[in-house]
């Protein structure tokens, strides 16, 4: 049997927003996450990919209950998290950690690095040699023990992200949620952080939920990938499968929109340029949420929400007319590799 660390089932998160314009008070409901299900096994990395407004970060926060899910189940090693009280949740927090995007905002500027890393030990009342633990953690993330006495402003962005990771490791977690952990960093620095995350996973058998918008980074680090669009999962499968044989029109469009650092490839490849912008999560489209921008949408896509189903073994897609593996959406809709300005309808 596989060792299942996290099982999320039918997760919903709605935000009620009140806005007053003059005397009129308007109520909105933002459908941030609408029925998302996935799992993560021990030692596995699941990449959660999506554009802004897709709800990917909200999912991460709901898993840790930094945001309360509106509906749905989050199970950590068989324990339902959504019904735990504060004390029970706090006890479990040692096993579930999060690393944020901005290493400048997530560290307290007035605390030494050592104090920041040791803080979770204080909170959880761990009685052991804090100094030794801090030294070991700093060493583990590629910093040196004497860095413990310094303050965050003395470090570069990449070093700060290492400190953030060290802090997440303090209580020996088994699952770390990484929310855009490298997107604020320059590429030459980003590579070092990705290597560190790889090493830590090998050494301690950590599981990661890796949330990001950068598809090449996600591909590099993930075993499996879940693609989100406007609050729903579009496609889930093994990394290689998603990148080489994606069957959802959104996944193919997204991959096709990412520029590859090779001018020869760029000059010759067929590209799908999606029209328009992401619709508002306040008033999401009926049926399939991607249908307003999908080049092959048809009537059923308006009327009926496509369920996420296992189209091929371990390859799931939420589409009424998924593509065949290897079939290219660009060929299907006859897109040329030419220059057009697509109007926004």
């Amino acid at each position, binding site marked *: 049997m596989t060792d299942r660390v996290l099982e999320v089932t039918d997760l919903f998160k709605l935000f009620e927003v009140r806005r007053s314009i003059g005397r009129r008070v308007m109520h909105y409901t933002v459908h941030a996450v609408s029925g998302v299900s996935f799992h993560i096994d021990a030692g596995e990395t699941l990449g959660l990919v999506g*554009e*802004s407004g897709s709800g990917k970060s909200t999912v991460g926060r709901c898993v840790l209950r930094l945001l309360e899910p509106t509906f749905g189940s989050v199970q950590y090693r068989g324990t339902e998290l959504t019904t735990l009280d504060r004390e029970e949740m706090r006890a479990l927090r040692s096993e579930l950690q999060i690393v944020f995007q901005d290493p400048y905002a997530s560290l307290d500027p007035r605390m030494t690095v050592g104090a920041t890393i040791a803080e979770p030990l204080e909170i959880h009342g761990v009685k052991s040699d804090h100094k030794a633990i801090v030294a070991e953690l700093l060493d583990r993330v590629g910093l040196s023990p004497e860095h413990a006495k310094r303050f965050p402003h003395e470090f*570069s962005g*990449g*070093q700060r992200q290492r400190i953030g990771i060290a802090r997440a490791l303090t209580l020996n977690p088994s699952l770390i949620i990484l929310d855009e952990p490298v997107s604020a960093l*320059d*590429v*030459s*620095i*980003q*590579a*070092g952080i*990705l*290597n560190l995350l*790889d090493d830590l996973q090998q050494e301690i058998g950590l599981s990661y939920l890796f949330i990001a*918008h950068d*598809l*090449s*980074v996600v*591909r*590099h*680090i993930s075993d499996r990938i879940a693609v989100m669009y406007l609050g729903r999962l579009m496609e889930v499968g093994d*990394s290689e499968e998603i*990148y080489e044989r994606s069957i959802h029109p959104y996944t193919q*469009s*997204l991959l*096709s*929109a*990412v*520029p*590859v*650092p*090779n*001018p*020869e*490839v*760029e000059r010759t490849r067929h*590209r799908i*340029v*999606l*029209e328009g*912008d*992401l619709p508002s999560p306040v008033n999401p489209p009926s049926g399939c949420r991607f249908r307003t*921008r999908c080049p092959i949408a048809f009537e059923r896509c308006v009327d009926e929400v496509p369920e996420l189903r296992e189209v091929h073994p371990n390859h799931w897609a939420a589409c009424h007319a998924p593509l065949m593996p290897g079939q290219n959406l660009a060929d299907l809709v006859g897109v040329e590799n030419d*220059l*057009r*300005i*697509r*109007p*926004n*309808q």
Partner: protein
Amino acid sequence: MSDAVLSVRDLRVSFPTEDGEVQAVRGISFDIAEHELMGIVGESGSGKSVTFLAVMGLLPKQAKITGSIKVAGQELVGIPDKTVRKVRGKKVAMIFQDPLTALNPVHRVGKQVEEMILAHQDVSDREATTKAIELLEMVGIPQPATRARQYPHEFSGGMRQRAMIAMAIANDPDILIADEPTTALDTTVQAQILEVIQSIQHELGAAIAFITHDLGVVARIADRVQVMYAGRIAERGEAQDIFIRPTHPYTKGLLNSLPDSQGSRLIPIPGSPPNMLRPPSGCAFRVRCVHAAEVCAGELPDLRPYGVVETACVRVDEIIAEMVL
């Protein structure tokens, strides 16, 4: 070169601070020709934005600028502000990462484009209105006549970017400077804006300087690429040469840092960019370079031809030989 629209020679920019002088740009020279899209690549602090803010005249007063910046033959360094403003508004235009810095929130979008036209062209108000709508259509804004009467907050991020581009090209500039124009946009919207910029290059024949840290974007749209590090140009050449056969260790380091599809272990560049208050002597990259030798600490390396590209590495012959062996 006579057909250079933008010609920069030995440009140096520094900022006095309490701790000393920050040397942001340390003697760079380059040309950009008509119809050419030059990608300017570099990480944060490389001086890529400062270089072009100097071209635009948008640096703070205390910035010390020396060298020469010529736009269509007209010198811009060391001449009266009034003359400079005339040249810049008409001949050079710039678009930014955040379109809200360029758009006025309390004026209708169409009006703002019209004002750009009226400031530099001798046309009637009505002609300006018509031209503004044409420009909005040209950058792919649907129902341009209706959209022209809306305010910036009614536009999405991608639409605002298009509106800012319309303003920038309103006076048919000789050179368009694009500073990370797609960095804040989602992948699918970025693809749309890149197409708009490419079509401007083709249809208007403008020279474009495209500043970005995203190597994929550069590979997609640039004719030539200039890689900057610590206020200097490390390497320059045709895009395909730079990407396929980089010669400078920094360019190689950048490309090696990118995750590839094989999932093989990444090769980061060790260390971090230098403090520009006290940049290292000689080649600034030497402190992070795996190929560095004693000679690198000597003179500041200049850009010299090497095969089909130009590279600023004194050890380039030995390094390439080592790679082949």
